[in-house]
């Protein structure tokens, strides 16, 4: 069987061609906003309100998560729509604008989240650590940094921690809050040992890959409400139950951007369960709540979960004034400014603003006067 292609305007003057049918060709949009003329009013509204033009060009299993890193506070968004791209922006917005004096950089690039091509993930982590050092830490002495690692390869992670920790203003090892790894497991303990050896804390933060107990729920509202605090609780319980704080009593675990309201419930619940089930975990020598006060720190943003008055009551209930540390979540749209803390009692405010951070991060001790 053979056939020739019908005449086509572009074929003027050529001989008839045998059919060739290509069954896999990829056209591309310049951006998803190319689709707006073909959408109804509501979805045009949704796309533009949540700035889908800045999210990756492919729909994914978690479309709302694709946009969560793209929206900044209006005043902090550059004309080209970018946020948090330069040291000058941090100087202008945070140091001059908000009254912050020192900033701990957590980035938004966590190669430890990658579930394949671990060699690539490790190369990315090394490159990011050097990039952060050269482009941020070396540009302003008020900036402090993190060690990105790939937790799957613990030996390599330890080497990277030792390497990057040589910079005096690197203050923490960074791990993403994820749903498919239990960071308390003994195989990860060398990471904590390396952190302690280098006077670093271990910080945890969620990102796109963090799921809820229901996976990626239907709506961003659900994910944004539940994801970070539930992931934080689960990983914290893993650290406690696997004896991380018993083994490394000077280790500090900092859990970022999970809000503040859940901690009391967690301490009460974990203590009650520990008293019933201690026999299962005899290597855990102290009440979970005691470990929380001594070894765990929470950054405060988003403080919108509660009022300052309620927060002060929560802290008093569980004697956790030493646990919380101010954070803004710059440059994101739901960041906290310092005015959020104005109605706190002065001594608690002082602890949040700097005292607890000075006590928590060994490498910040030099800022104390």
């Amino acid at each position: 069987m053979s056939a020739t292609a019908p005449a086509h305007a572009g074929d003027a003057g050529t001989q008839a061609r045998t059919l060739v049918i290509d069954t896999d060709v990829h056209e591309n949009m310049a951006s998803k906003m190319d689709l707006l003329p073909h959408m109804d009013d509501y979805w045009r509204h949704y796309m533009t309100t949540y700035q889908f033009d800045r999210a990756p060009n492919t729909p994914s299993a978690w479309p709302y998560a694709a946009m969560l890193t793209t929206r900044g506070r209006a005043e902090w968004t550059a004309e080209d729509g970018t946020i948090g791209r330069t040291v000058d922006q941090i100087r202008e917005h945070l140091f001059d604008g908000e009254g912050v004096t020192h900033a701990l950089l957590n980035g938004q690039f966590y190669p430890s989240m990658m579930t394949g091509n671990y060699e690539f993930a490790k190369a990315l982590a090394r490159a990011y650590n050097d990039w952060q050092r050269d482009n941020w830490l070396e540009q302003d002495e008020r900036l402090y940094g993190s060690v990105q690692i790939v937790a799957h390869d613990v030996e390599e992670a330890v080497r990277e921690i030792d390497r990057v920790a040589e910079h005096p203003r690197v203050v923490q090892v960074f791990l993403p809050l994820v749903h498919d790894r239990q960071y308390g497991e003994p195989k990860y303990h060398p990471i904590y040992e390396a952190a302690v050896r280098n006077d670093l804390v271990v910080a945890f933060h969620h990102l796109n890959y963090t799921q809820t107990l229901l996976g990626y729920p239907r709506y961003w509202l659900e994910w944004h409400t539940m994801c970070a605090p539930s992931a934080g609780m689960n990983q914290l319980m893993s650290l406690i139950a696997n004896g991380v704080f018993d083994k490394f009593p000077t280790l500090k675990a900092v859990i970022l951007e999970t809000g503040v309201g859940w901690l009391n419930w967690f301490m009460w619940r974990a203590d009650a369960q520990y008293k019933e089930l201690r026999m299962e975990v005899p290597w855990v020598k102290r009440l979970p709540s005691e470990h929380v006060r001594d070894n765990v720190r929470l950054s405060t943003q988003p403080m919108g979960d509660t009022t300052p008055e309620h927060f002060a009551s929560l802290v008093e209930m569980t004697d956790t004034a030493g646990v919380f540390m101010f954070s803004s979540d710059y440059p994101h749209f739901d960041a906290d400014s310092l005015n959020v803390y104005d109605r706190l009692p002065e001594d608690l405010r002082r602890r949040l603003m700097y005292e607890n951070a000075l006590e928590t991060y060994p490498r910040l001790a030099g800022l104390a006067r």
Partner: protein
Amino acid sequence: MKKVELCKLEDLEPGTVRRFDVGKLPLVVVRLPDGRIRAMRDRCSHYGARLSLGKLQPKVVGDEVGERRFAEDGEVVLRCPWHGYEFDVDTGRCIADPMHQSVRTYRILVEDDTVFLDR
């Protein structure tokens, strides 16, 4: 009552969101798509953001899961640029929490193609 001139009507196109500082009063004035003008204090009741940096948007309504449509009467909201709180431009109340989050509204007069704050 005292009238404070804000601007010429032609300087407020429909869809405009604009800030005016009237003495110590920060004011956000919006001109709705149907031409009406509304004003409220330019300070979000949540964390104090400038509502004048926000957007005038159609109010989204719906009753069944998955149902979303714009309000049939053309109702619009002023959306805060920080956390996205939506404020009713007539009442100043937050759509999601009308009992606890609201912004004071102010009267606007239009006379001889001039827009006035009516204090």
